[in-house]
């Protein structure tokens, strides 16, 4: 049986990407293999680890639980889109580095996209808000404490700078 294919157009981090993809290809595989955006990590491929989280039309979603064809005509932000145009880390990224919120970095793309959405939805999260927000993201290295501290600190830095997540 020949592989059914579809043409798709997806805006990723503000840039339009076009590809012809097998209809069964997951969005995570499309981002990595078709668009070359390997910042999005793939851990479990069945919706448990959260490493593949991207922002789909502004909201966090597991890209391993979507088909690439479903992204046609939609907008996606990945970890590659979080830094500024000048290449500066976002407040959240900088805070994560300062608080040792990553070791191997495998969970980091999912943590950052999830927390970016949290800080947009809720600019003054509590410790518990942050823990609940990342409850769907597994980290095998840090023990989470540095990640929670980073999110809380990032919220403060964003307020001090008067900018957005």
């Amino acid at each position, binding site marked *: 049986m020949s592989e059914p294919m579809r043409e798709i157009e997806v805006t990723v981090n503000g840039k339009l990407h076009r590809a012809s993809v097998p209809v069964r290809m997951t969005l995570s595989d499309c981002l990595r293999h078709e668009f070359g955006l390997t910042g999005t990590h793939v851990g479990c491929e069945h919706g448990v680890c959260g490493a593949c989280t991207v922002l789909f039309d502004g909201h966090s979603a597991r890209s391993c639980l*979507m088909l690439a064809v479903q992204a046609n005509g939609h907008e996606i932000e990945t970890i590659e889109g979080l830094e500024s145009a000048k290449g500066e880390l976002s407040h959240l990224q900088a805070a994560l580095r300062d608080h040792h919120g990553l070791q191997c970095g495998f969970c980091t793309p999912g943590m950052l996209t999830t927390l970016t959405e949290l800080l947009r939805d809720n600019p003054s999260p509590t410790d518990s808000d942050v823990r609940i927000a990342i409850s769907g993201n597994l980290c095998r290295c840090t023990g989470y404490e540095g990640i929670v501290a980073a999110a809380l600190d990032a919220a403060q830095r964003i307020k001090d700078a008067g900018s957005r997540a």
Partner: protein
Amino acid sequence: MKPPSFAYHDPKSVEDAVALLGSLENAKLLAGGQSLMPMLNMRFVLPDHVIDLNNIPGLAGVELHDQALVIGAMTRQRELEFSDLVATHCPILAEALLQVGHRQTRNRGTIGGSLCHLDPAAELPTLCLALEAQVEVVGPSGPRGLMFADFPLGYMTPAIGADELVTRIALPLWPKGHGYAFEEFARRHGDFAIASAAVVLTLDAQGAIDRVAVAIGGVCATPMRMEAIEAALMGREPSPELFRAATAACKELDALGDVHAPASYRQHLAGVMVRRALVRACERASAGSKS
């Protein structure tokens, strides 16, 4: 690639989706994808056709219609979680949703998808049973309605034909100031419940229970409406002794046993969840009647 090979269809209307269901063999409907996609990735299901409902306009949204909240089947759990209509008229739905998966899965997952997947431990089917929800199903001969009580035929098996799809869910409203609570025990936040309980009730002027609905999830092959508990509570004043006696009926449940918990533990836990939900629901009902 993880998913098996299939043909992909994205109909633009309910009629087209129903026509596809009627003409294609071995087709699966794709709603929010938070259950179907893992099953595809693990090749637990091998459909020849996947029919994506995400491009059909008009299947999502929340509206208030004479004494019921009418919810489109493709309404994302996120939209319900943040809906003012839900917060005002059906607060137990907002409370239950916080136990459904995680932010990332609620952003995609739909109410219709959860009801049709009908995982015995899922929160939304349990809640729909307690609220006496009505489900609108559309097939080749048009729409029909059924009570959610008649929806689960058995383990993960909804009472819908192979050429039908769920389009709307109506949740009848309880009076303003009613008491409610959704309780759940799971090993980790966001996991499926080992046992959950949904309780909705009202108290009369003397403080006795004059209307009550109790449903349990995660314990049996389908969510269970607990009429024996309701009957034992009706007309009585809430007290720990009453709740303990009324929930003794949980010991009779035909409970599932699995790697997470044996059947006897689930029976025990069901009673604990119902009692906790009753306590909180009564507190809310007495606060509501005073305000």
